[in-house]
């Protein structure tokens, strides 16, 4: 605590908290200054440092604000925000340095980093926001800034992905706006929800849906598997690692967790979460691009987090253990998923056999951690989830099938991770022969050679991943659970999942559709297109839109025909005369005497009216 006090002296919170977003945002405007623009990539990654300093240096309770800005912008650091800020700032910082190396030969890198800086500032501000309007400000800014990250490569695929993303985000933002207004009406704009305020079902549904878009809650998840493969590798890493967590952070802020019991919503969230875990695992296993597989894995993992949030909603007594599970799971997933995404670039960019083996082993360990292999952060997170489930049982929840479902969910994660490694090994890379190294589509990860700095930060992030169980959380750290947990309970689901993948792989190999398939010219379409339900949904919407347009045109034509008939009947007789008179009058008015006459006429009519009114 002595260290924290010292940091507080050097960086008073009133300055440090606004600096976390003001510095990156002001720096982003360098894009408009010709001489500075070129140098933007060199120092942009370091501007996540203010957020990092706040994350490691300040204690919960620090406040600040800009009272003239918007509707009194207030900032405060609380326990939940601190947990999120720790992993967010770390990932932004390291992924930023990685991005500088990754985009070293990209002429559009300054634009990428301008959007990056806006996103860094928005993310930090979001986690520090002290009232609803401030939250909404940063949430909207973060959503818009990510558009620029996804669309960076400007290939048709990236442009479409960004478009899909933006549509989802705007709808989410609009729903969130409605939710916040409804809640603000009850609370007066205060961020936390007091126990004595009753929140109706409408705001809860709007919060779940509006923020659920960002979080990738099924069925609002379709943008994730479309956006992730299109974005540059470091952007995918922050997208999955950090940005989708902003939706989760909003849930923790605006749902009445630990305040009231909402059994109905709790059941819906748990059931929906479990469904998402398996649904995303099945659809994700059918994908062929490693980043798409990872995106589906994120959808699946967010399903597990929804289960934890649902457990917390079952009653105030269940919340402390559920909260711990949510925070640990969020941290674990953020760091692991970032390592995995950066690994797509790492494996593809590794030159030489040894580097490739090293890269693949790092990715393999991270994949094991995500699947919950014993003694990893994933095992700790899953143990926390089981503890939360037990906590909810004691608080009165009855779902006997849930423990088994969660264990099978871990197996499903293992299947997805197996599929990820499978696609990754077969993906084109810098060390393979020329034909395979050609990117199949523009913007693919292949062929990006990474400089030493990128390898170093990837290694640092991997090291951080190994320490996640020891990170301090409100309510202890994950280490406690690792000590208590039964390794066998963590091991069997992973083994089951790995077994399924091995079986599938050998079958595919024998059938000639395994690894060699991925080197075949031209990518075959996966059985289920990325975005799954979006494809039929979009088709349905097109049909509806066409029908509506046809109807509108039909009605319009009817009216038009009527109007034409009317004009034919009447214009012939009177219209021409009236029109000519108008033209003459207009011509008259435009000349000087005309103007004078108009004014005179006006004054005269005014006097007459005056008399009339008076009389």
């Amino acid at each position, binding site marked *: 605590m002595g260290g924290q006090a010292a940091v507080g002296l050097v960086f008073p919170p009133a300055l440090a908290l606004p600096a976390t977003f003001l510095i990156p945002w002001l720096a982003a405007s360098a894009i*408009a200054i010709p001489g500075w623009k070129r140098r933007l990539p060199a120092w942009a990654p370091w501007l996540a440092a203010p957020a990092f300093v706040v994350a490691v240096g300040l204690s919960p309770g620090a406040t600040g604000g800009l*009272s*003239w*800005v*918007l*509707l*009194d*912008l207030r900032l405060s650091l609380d326990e939940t925000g601190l947990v999120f800020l720790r992993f967010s700032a770390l990932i932004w910082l390291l992924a930023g340095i990685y991005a500088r190396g990754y985009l070293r030969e990209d002429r559009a890198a300054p634009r990428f980093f301008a959007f990056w800086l806006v996103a860094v500032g928005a993310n930090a501000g979001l986690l520090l926001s002290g009232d609803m*309007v401030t939250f*909404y*400000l940063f949430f*909207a*800014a973060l959503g*818009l800034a990510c558009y620029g990250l996804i*669309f960076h490569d*400007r290939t048709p695929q990236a442009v479409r992905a960004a478009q899909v993303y*933006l549509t989802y985000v*705007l*709808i989410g933002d*609009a*729903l969130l*706006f*409605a939710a916040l*207004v*409804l809640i*603000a*009406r009850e609370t007066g704009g205060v961020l936390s929800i007091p126990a004595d305020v009753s929140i109706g079902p409408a705001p809860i549904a709007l919060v779940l849906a509006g923020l659920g878009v960002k979080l990738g809650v099924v069925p609002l998840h379709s943008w994730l598997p479309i956006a992730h493969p299109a974005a540059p590798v470091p952007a995918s890493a922050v997208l999955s690692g950090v940005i989708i967590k902003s939706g989760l952070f909003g849930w923790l802020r605006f749902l009445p967790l630990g305040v009231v019991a909402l059994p109905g919503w709790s059941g819906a969230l748990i059931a929906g979460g479990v469904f998402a875990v398996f649904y995303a695992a099945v659809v994700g296993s059918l994908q062929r691009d490693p980043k798409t597989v990872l995106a589906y894995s994120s959808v699946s993992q967010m399903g597990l987090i929804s289960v934890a949030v649902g457990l917390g909603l079952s009653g105030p007594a269940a919340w402390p253990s559920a909260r711990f599970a949510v925070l640990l799971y969020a941290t674990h997933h953020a760091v692991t998923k970032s390592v995995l995404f950066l690994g797509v670039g790492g494996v593809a960019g590794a030159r030489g056999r040894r580097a490739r083996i090293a890269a693949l082993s790092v990715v393999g360990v991270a994949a094991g951690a995500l699947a919950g292999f014993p003694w990893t952060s994933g095992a700790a997170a899953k143990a926390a989830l089981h503890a939360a489930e037990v906590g909810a049982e004691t608080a009165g929840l009855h779902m006997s099938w849930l423990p088994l479902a969660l264990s099978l969910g871990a197996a499903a994660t293992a299947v997805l991770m197996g599929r990820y490694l499978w696609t990754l090994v077969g993906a084109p890379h810098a060390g393979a022969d020329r034909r395979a190294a050609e990117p199949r589509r523009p913007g693919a990860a292949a062929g990006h050679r990474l400089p030493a700095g990128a390898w170093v930060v990837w290694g640092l992030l991997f090291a951080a991943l190994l320490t996640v169980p020891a990170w301090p959380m409100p309510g202890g750290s994950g280490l406690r659970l690792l000590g208590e947990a039964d390794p066998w309970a963590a091991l069997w689901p992973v083994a089951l999942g790995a077994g399924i993948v091995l079986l599938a792989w050998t079958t595919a190999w024998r059938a000639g559709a395994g690894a060699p398939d991925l080197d075949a010219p031209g990518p075959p379409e996966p059985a289920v297109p990325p975005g799954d339900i979006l494809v039929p949904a979009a088709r349905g919407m097109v049909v509806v839109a066409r029908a509506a347009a046809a109807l509108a045109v039909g009605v319009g034509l009817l009216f038009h025909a009527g109007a034409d008939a009317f004009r034919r009947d009447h214009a012939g007789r009177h219209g021409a005369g009236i029109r000519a008179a*108008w*033209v003459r009058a*207009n011509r008259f*008015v*435009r000349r*000087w005497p005309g*103007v004078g006459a*108009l*004014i005179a006429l*006006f004054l005269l009519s*005014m006097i007459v*009216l*005056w*008399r*009339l*009114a*008076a*009389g």
Partner: protein
Amino acid sequence: MTWHAWLPVLTLLSSLVPGLVIFALPERSFRTRTTLNLAGASIKLVFVTLIARGLLAGEDFTSVLPLGAGLDLVLHADNLSVLFALLSAVLWFFSTIYAIGYLEGSPNRSRFFGFYSLCVSSTVGVAFAGNLLTFFFFYEALALATYPLVVHRGTAASLDAGRVYLGYTLFGSALLLAGVLWLRSLAGPVPFVPGGSLPATALAHRGDLVWIFLILVAGLGVKAALVPLHGWLPVAMIAPAPVSALLHAVAVVKAGAFGLIRLVNDVFGAGALVAIGVERVLPTVAAVTILWGSVRALGQTRLKRLLAYSTVSQLSYVALGTSLLGVTASVGGLVHLVHQGLMKITLFFCAGNLAETLGIQEIRDMKGVGRRMPLTMIAFTACALGMIGIPPLAGFVSKWYLALGGLETGRPWVIAVLVASTLLNAAYFLPIIYSVWFGTPDRPWRGSSAHPTAGEPAARPWWGETGPLLVWPTVAVALLATGAGLFANAPFSPLAWAKFIVSGGGP
């Protein structure tokens, strides 16, 4: 008469006198005309600021011109007047500078600036009108003074637009006059008093009052572009950009919306509206207008037409906020009067810059124009995002108050309307912003010889995307629009003044 009684009249004269002198000036006396214009605009700003300061100190500004026969022309400055007068004084200042740059070298400038000044004088009259008859007088003067500006170019299209404009507006005036006279016969002179000024005896005539209210709303609704009386606004976009600014931001549509505020708050008052049972009329019409304007904007291919439909939609936020009859909603409506004005004048200046510099009228020609005219397009982007309602820009502040106000008055559907409008706004503005910054032009733009600074890139200063008199007013109003939202909680923001009005603020 004391200083306080003179100040509203002087404010009126500060543009009327230069206007009348300008009419008499020969076409070539550019310098005298410009001096008169700018002096008038500056003096008006000073006067309105003086009045605002006086009101903060609790002073009273009333001028009465007795016209005999029991009829008085009353100019009375209250808090609401100053909101509108200050808005139009500030925007007039910038649009005068802009118009000088825009019309450089074109014919009939004395006529143009003469009527321009008359328009603004009438607007100040509308703002300071102390009773309904005075209001009508200036409202009518505004309509007539605008017509020569709409047809200024004299082309067939602009004459046609002028015809439509005059037709609509005279129809509105006739209704308004009928309503004013009918109300006068029932309730005597109707001064503007916060909370309503109808005497108790008048309230007995419920049936008459319902009709009077509907007629007055229709009469004002023509200028406020309420659906289905909005048809003139998209047609009138043919006028030159400074006139569009006048129509959409400084004067005309604002006078309509301002009249609605006066009618609802200061003539009838919430109590009377509920008593005669018409409190649902205006919110419904406003909601329909908000949605219909946005839907129509979606299909437009011409930038200025799209902006006109956007005005139809956005202006009804003001009507909606006022007609909900709640404190928070009123703040939202009043503040949007200012916010919409600031954002829309910027957007029209940008459209004018595009048309004047590169000959761009159609949205499809805007691809990649962000690189050619960065300052203009940054201003455009900021205000378009503000219109959508993205924080921290001004539109968000308005929407937040309107939505809260809707809940406060027990009308949660307001949120649905606002959300739908937000999404529609995004659907028609974001594709433009995208193509402006990331598109590539299909064909070369027209080079402009009218503005020598807009020549070769190497010869231009960094701001030289077009003439200085076009760039700088655009940048200035864009900064004001951005600042109004970003610093909404500052002591002298439009929001602070709107709250001051609604709280019935004295010292």
